[in-house]
């Protein structure tokens, strides 16, 4: 005997079908919903900071992760960890921003944190004043010819 005010089987039947499960993200680093855009405003990820605590981070500064893989208990956010994962291979600041779909300024702040904590190592590009190293030009010409 059904209790009088309990939901009837019909009620359940009308329940809308469950939406299909969201597709698996293609990469573990993919923590943004492409369609909706970032779920968190960039300045939240950086706790409101707009300048990195250390370093200048040119767009072509090369970054590589060093040391052991950190765990999440030491004050690093998911974006920090995503950067460390990406930088297992050498990667420029521009590439990091492109892969994570984050503004350059945000990535710079987070790289400053990682540099502070010793999780990344950097290679800054040649400053403009040092554009007189002929080896650079020769290497670039050779590299282009080999394409």
């Amino acid at each position: 005997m059904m209790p009088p005010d309990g939901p009837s089987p019909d009620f359940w039947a009308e329940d809308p079908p469950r939406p299909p499960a969201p597709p698996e993200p293609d990469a573990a680093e993919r923590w943004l919903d492409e369609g909706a855009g970032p779920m968190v405003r960039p300045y939240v990820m950086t706790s409101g900071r707009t300048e990195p605590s250390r370093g200048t981070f040119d767009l072509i500064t090369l970054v590589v992760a060093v040391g052991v893989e950190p765990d999440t208990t030491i004050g690093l956010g998911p974006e920090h960890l995503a950067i460390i994962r990406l930088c297992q291979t050498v990667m420029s600041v521009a590439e990091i921003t492109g892969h994570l779909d984050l503004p350059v300024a945000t990535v710079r702040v987070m790289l400053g944190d990682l540099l502070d904590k010793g999780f990344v190592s950097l290679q800054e590009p040649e400053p403009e004043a040092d554009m007189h190293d002929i080896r650079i030009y020769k290497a670039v010409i050779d590299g282009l010819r080999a394409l």
Partner: protein
Amino acid sequence: MVSGPSRRNTPAGGVRARRLPTAVKIVIAGGFGVGKTTMVGTVSETQPLRTEELLTDRGVGVDDVEGVERKDTTTVAMDFGRITMRDEYVLYLFGTPGQKRFWFMWDEVALGALGAVVLADTRRLSDCFPSVDYFERRKTPFVVAVNCFEGAKRYDLAEIQMALNLGPRVPVMLCDARRLDSCKEVLIDLVLHAMKYRGLSEEAQPQNA
């Protein structure tokens, strides 16, 4: 070179420091729709990526934002590609937005660039004036590459040189941004020009530039 604190050692005792390559960059500039992204994509070894910069206070004085202060932050996107040169160097190509109001961004990209390619379209030659102006003023070595669109009237290179009021030493060439050999040629010519411009070619390169 800045590196993380060296105390972070691997269990083996040595710092897991690989010798990092040095990155160099070339800027691909020019008006809207002239083929910058195409050129970047043609020569890049990876799928071109896009980096975004928020146009906030740094745009003040560049963009007139009076009356629209509450407008959402403008985003400027830039496409770039990468070419690995043996182990020591990595070349990045940045396609910069051509409009004058993005100059704040150009400064960042042009700083330390090996040189620049200004792409031009003869149907809208004036679109590349701001780029030419910019690199001339900044003294960044550049070449002008006329992207040959189908249906566009072919001009003599000397005419284009004159129309752009270029100095006689700025190389002007035709190119097809969709073809690798054509883009390669433009980039190699640019690097040779940059060497010459910076007074490096005499002892190292035969005078074929």
